[in-house]
């Protein structure tokens, strides 16, 4: 019995569209984002449309629950391109009535007109990268906007869209627990129904990564301080009615980001644009897909027929591991039966008992849920649960 054939339906189906350009590269960022002098928006639009057709041919008839324009800075896309892309998608797939269509935006010089055009194109939700609420820290993060500009952009966005979320980065250089608590309280008075709060991660291959290795990135909170901030984050959010429903994401109940929930529930998602990842089930088999990461390489590959650079069938064990790593991030946790079906073997009962005895996970309704105590140690918890 091909147990995993329709496994993705537990998560739903979504489309991720990657726009790889930004006005400036932030020193901490290792997303596939680049600064380009000139972008031929028409040529790029044609490539996206061709890729949509290619993917749609392969996955016909699916009900599309969500679309996410991520980046890079997709708010730099020509609104006409966004409109054309969404029109083409609607022609190729049946859309869920309440489809969630998110666009990531940078709070630079946002004109109200542009946001209205995005809304007219079909965007229903904005996720805005505000990152910090004081100008000195924004400069240290290499951001090219001020707090005032960010707030103005946010106000325009909330005047245009029902759902607007924003991102902050914390555990920054020289940030104390008290600083962060104050900043977060302030942020939550602004927040509508959703907020993403990421601990600063030092990534290899970024400017921060290089400086860190040379010992020149000073004042980063140590693990203990960062853990305190992580715990305080959930508490403060809860006090404002925002629940931590994923490691870094908080929402009023019912306002969770549904696109990301598809990843975390290990549904199917197609990735379009440079360096986009997908998980798709074709003829009963689940594949990992990747597209060319380099924008120019992707563009010409897409024009020649496919932007895809990798398609790899996933073994049951691999799918199980991915499902576990994704689902343990969220409040609803992991379905033990689904894990076992994917893996072809039950979850390690000894590890599960040990972890639950230590209070890192709980088991309820056939699901493993990582506790507030376990969440800051999620990598170790997952590692132990999946150990051979």
């Amino acid at each position, binding site marked *: 019995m091909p147990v995993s054939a329709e496994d993705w339906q537990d998560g739903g189906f979504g489309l*991720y569209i*990657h726009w790889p350009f930004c006005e400036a590269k932030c020193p901490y960022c290792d*997303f596939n984002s680049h600064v380009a002098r000139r972008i031929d928006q028409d040529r790029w639009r044609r490539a996206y449309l061709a890729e949509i057709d290619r993917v749609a041919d392969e996955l016909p008839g699916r009900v599309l629950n969500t679309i*996410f324009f*991520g980046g890079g800075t997709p708010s730099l896309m020509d609104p006409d391109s966004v409109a054309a892309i969404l029109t083409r998608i609607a022609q190729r797939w049946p859309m869920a009535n309440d489809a969630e269509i998110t666009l990531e935006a940078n709070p630079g010089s946002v004109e109200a007109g542009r946001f209205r055009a995005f809304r007219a194109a079909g965007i229903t939700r904005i996720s805005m990268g505000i990152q910090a609420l004081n100008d000195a820290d924004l400069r240290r993060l290499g951001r090219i906007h001020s707090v005032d500009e960010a707030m103005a952009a946010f106000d325009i966005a909330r005047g245009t869209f029902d759902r607007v979320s924003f991102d902050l980065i914390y555990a920054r250089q020289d940030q104390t627990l008290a600083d962060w608590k104050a900043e977060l309280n302030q942020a939550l008075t602004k927040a509508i129904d959703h907020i993403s709060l*990421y*601990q*600063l*991660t030092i990534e290899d291959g970024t400017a921060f990564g290089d400086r860190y290795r040379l010992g020149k990135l000073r004042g980063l909170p140590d*693990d*203990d301080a*960062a*853990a305190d901030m*992580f715990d305080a984050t959930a508490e403060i959010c809860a006090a404002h009615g925002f629940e931590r429903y*994923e*490691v*870094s994401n908080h929402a009023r109940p019912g306002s969770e980001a549904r696109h*990301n929930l598809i*990843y975390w529930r*290990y549904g199917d*998602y197609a*990735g379009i644009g440079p360096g*986009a*990842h*997908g*998980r798709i089930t074709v003829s009963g088999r689940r594949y*990992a897909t*990747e597209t060319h990461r380099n924008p120019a390489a992707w563009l010409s590959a897409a024009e020649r027929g496919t932007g895809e650079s990798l398609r790899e069938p996933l073994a049951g064990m*691999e799918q199980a*591991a*991915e499902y576990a*790593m*994704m689902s343990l*991030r969220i409040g609803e946790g992991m379905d033990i039966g689904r894990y076992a079906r994917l893996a072809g073997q039950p979850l390690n009962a000894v590890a599960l008992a040990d972890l639950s005895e*230590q209070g*890192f996970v709980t088991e309820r309704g056939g699901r493993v849920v990582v506790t507030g105590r376990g*969440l*800051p*140690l*999620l*990598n*170790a*918890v*997952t*590692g*132990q649960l*999946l*150990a*051979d």
Partner: protein
Amino acid sequence: MRLMTPLSHIRNFSIVAHIDHGKSTLADRLIQSTGTVQDRDMKEQLLDAMDIERERGITIKANTVRIDYTADNGEKYVLNLIDTPGHVDFAYEVSRSMRAVEGSLLVVDSTQGVEAQTLANVYQAIDADHEIVPVLNKIDLPASEPDRVREQIEDVIGIDAKDALLVSAKTGIGIHETLEAIVHRLPAPKGDAAAPLKAMLVDSWYDSYLGVVVLVRIMDGVLRKGDQIKMMQTGARYGVDRLGVFRPAMQPVDELGPGEIGFLTASIKQVRDTRVGDTITHEKKGADKPLPGFKPSIPVVFCGLFPVDSSEFEDMRDAIEKLALNDASFTFEMETSAALGFGFRCGFLGLLHLEVIRDRIEREYDIDLITTAPSVVYHVHMKDGEMRELHNPADMPDLTYVDHMEEPRIKATILVPDEYLGDVLKLCQDRRGIQQELTYAGSRAMVVYDLPLNEVVFDFYDRLKSVTKGYASFDYQVVGYREDNLVKMQILVNDEPVDALSTMVHRDRAETRGRAMVEKLKDLIPRHMFKIPIQAAIGGKVIARETLSAMRKDVTAKCYGGDATRKRKLLDKQKAGKKKMRQFGKVDIPQEAFINALKMDS
């Protein structure tokens, strides 16, 4: 067919230098400028054969090369260069090599000046009665200060440096002058071709084509191909199959006469069958007395080596046996440990020797190893009068049957500029040393200490270097055993004893050492999801304790779109990292922890 070179036209020499002062570059340049090797065959650093030697910049085995040189006076000379190991672990090999030659080039980097190894090695040369020609190298560099360094050589070493040569081994400046100085300033060897054969066994190694190759220096007599020879220490007898010289490739010759340096092969099966320093003579009409000063090299430091992946045990046995064929000073026997499985207890000349062998197994045979705490050999005297050699603290017999214990002591000689003298005395005192001598030579002090070897094997040399900024030289020899109050200290991690970390310590030093070890381990063991007590104990009594607090944060903040592959790779990396550790109960201990825990910071 080749005639022996007359003694008057032979010069045998070595090059003495601190690491990186240009010994190998100078040797290359001498070889190249005399046409010994065609330019197109010239590889950088001809004499450093092994990868490890090249990488660490150290010479482990003696290498040799014969250079033909026509001097300005029109005469043809044979110059034999022996390149020697520079580290104290191999001090005995160095002293043998030095006794095989009559002179040394003292190479000092003229931008740096005299350093620790320069001293250690130059004193060996002086001990061997060498004529010494100072060479100030790297004079092509703007930072070169030949006058200052010349003065320093005179002050610190106490030899005349007025006629020091100004050389750039890199650009070739002064190479001709160096060759002339070798001819005119170094003495010719002495020897008697008519006397019974006496050849010194300088070194030996295994060659995959020729079998064991023996490097010899003929003192008296003549050695010919086909001769029946006898090793005077081991008594073993062989027929000489091949005789030759190094240029630096092997070149056969029919005979070697007094003063000459060359090699022989004689269907000797293992390097173990040869002894550095042994005297080789003819089986019939041989010499009646061997050359003076032979002593066998015996391992003084022992440790357990275990494969990280226990399925690699057989590969490891293979690797060890192969390495042992080529290194007589290294011993091994099988060992089993509850925590580490099957491995070997190995004996070494010192810590560097240990590290070299371990690196070679890991690199040349691609086997990851766990190294347990190094230990010296203790004499355990039982109440029934029996004496047991203890190579491994894990084998310590029940104390109720033990009468007393003895440990090996060394005589350590340290030369140090007087501004660091106080620090050196304190270091020796801290390591239970007993001062025996303190004299001055110019601005340098010479201190002689009687020290327990177990206080020296771990990190004494590193500490000495660091407290004296590299300006001390250090040499030692094992002088005997002495009774002392020794105890076995155990380390408990999360309440479980970790055998591989047990050490023998002096009772008075146990608290300090125990404290240092648990503190070190606290840094070396990664945080776990629970807190971990780390304790040092003697016979059940805890003498030091630290608690490694529980891990607080280990979570990936960002979601990276749908890049689930990245997450799966993280998990794989986690698993691979765990493989590099050993599990003791619920605790994973990284393999470096076993050896690093013993290095002390003070």
